């Protein structure tokens, strides 16, 4: 089995719900807590397994905003595991999930240097490295309904931009999505062979704007008044 995620960049709205639900589930999960530093201070920071960045692709007027969630890619060639001197980082043979044994980690940061995707973050409180577990404490829990045996981020996503499944099975929904929507891996030139794949935005016809009427006089006056009045 090769478990991983498919992330649909066409429908991701960048709401950060996946990151929040990930934090909520995993802070009390197997590698929790996900420590927060000064949560009520001026510069709240902390450990996250999932981060969303926002990019602009192309130049105006042919530009597009892309919301870009990233977590551990559970790479086939996981250098983070190879470089770990203590054996705390390991890749499960049965499903390819990369995990960190919190009891063995010495906090040398070396695995985070080897990760190109920024998936690993040191918890300054515990002094150990932490990362996405693909909700390993959820996906095999037989007390949960089958539909709930998925990573927390996948269940939470309101736009259905996240899909979880087995890439070794050519008929699984994730394999089909990658095949049909031309899914791709990030930074393939480094040779990590990440399991997670990204679906590019669909090609759509441009919306014609030539026939859109300009502003009427009353609208222009109202806009000017709104700007002029100091509230």
């Amino acid at each position, binding site marked *: 089995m090769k478990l991983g995620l498919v992330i649909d960049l066409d429908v991701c709205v960048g709401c950060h719900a996946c*990151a929040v639900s990930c934090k909520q589930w995993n802070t009390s999960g197997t590698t929790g807590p996900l420590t927060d530093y000064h949560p009520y201070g001026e*510069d*709240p*920071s902390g*450990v*996250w397994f999932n*981060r*969303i*960045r*926002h*990019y*602009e*692709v*192309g*130049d105006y007027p*042919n530009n597009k*905003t*892309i919301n*870009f969630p*990233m977590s551990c890619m559970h790479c086939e060639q996981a*250098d983070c*595991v*190879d*470089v*770990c*001197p*203590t*054996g*705390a980082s390991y890749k499960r043979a049965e499903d390819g999930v990369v995990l960190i044994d919190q*009891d*063995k*980690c*010495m*906090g*040398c*940061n*070396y695995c*985070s*240097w*080897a*990760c*190109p*995707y*920024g998936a690993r*973050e*040191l918890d300054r409180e*515990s*002094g*150990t490295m932490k990362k996405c577990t693909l909700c390993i404490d959820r996906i095999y829990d037989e007390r949960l309904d089958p539909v709930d045996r998925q990573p927390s981020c996948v269940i939470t996503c309101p736009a259905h931009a996240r899909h979880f499944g087995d890439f070794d099975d050519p008929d699984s929904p994730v394999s089909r999505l990658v095949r049909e929507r031309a899914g*791709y*891996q*990030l*930074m*393939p*030139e*480094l*040779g*990590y062979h990440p399991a997670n794949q*990204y679906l*590019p935005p669909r090609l759509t016809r441009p919306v014609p704007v030539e026939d859109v009427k300009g502003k009427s006089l009353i609208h222009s006056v109202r806009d000017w008044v709104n700007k002029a009045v100091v509230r």
Partner: protein
Amino acid sequence: MHPAFSVIFFTVASGAGYGLFMLMVLARLFNAEGMNMGTMLSAGMLALVLISAGLLSSTFHLANPKNAWRAFFRFRTSWLSREGVFAVLFYPFALLYLLLLWVLDNQNSTIMSGIGVLALLLALATVFSTGMIYACLKTIRQWNTALTPANYLLIGLATGGVLLVMLIMMNGGRGSSVAWLAGTLLLIAGITKAVYYFWIRTVIGPSINTATGFTRAQVRLLDTGHTAGTFLTDEFGYQADPQLLDSLKYMVFIFGFFLPACFMAAVFAGAGGWGSALLAALCALGGIGVERWLFFAEARHVVNLYHGAQRT
């Protein structure tokens, strides 16, 4: 990359220590001038002090040092683990070598030489592993080169050579043959460092386009998604002023290579006392300290692409 002081001190001090020990064993093996009992013992002791201080300092950057003993267990895949194993294996051979020298009262013996060569090989393996820790990372293109372990080995040997010349002169020797070797090593180390600095100027490696997969248009960061710094920005986001980097490179070549090499040439010609040898050693170690700081400060991890860098 964030230049951590503990790692800079570790690589400079233990590199010089291993270099000093290697050259000491070699010089003794070839019966170089000035390798008397006093030089041997003081060189051995200084090497062990430098190595131990460096190794101790390297544990200060661990966030969870109580698990440091586990670092010897992934010898098969991890260069960090290999470095630790070689570093620890070096100690018994190095101590036994110095003990035999003392017990045999400065007489040469085959067993002593054999143990010395074993310690030399382990020292070589340790410094090579230190270089490979950085060179094996595909994520940092400034490090992912054969020049990295070559630089670590040559600079370790060169600084060790300068220290050995200093100790020979302190113990009443002339040190001309070792000075010739140290000067040559400084020259070669300086040239490979110059090759390295020219090589990293070329822009290669991943871009923000391959990092996001959008290779058909320009990609710009709109928002990183966090307001305060994160582990990733703290660890990998370090950026120094390019002008400062360039002026520090002059310092590396002047203090790290040129001035010590000039002094070695003077010793070879028969001039200078041990006081100026000490000055040359301090000069070399200071210059190499700057070199090591630059090694970290100039390294650009690919994760910076996700935070808006266009190229690494």
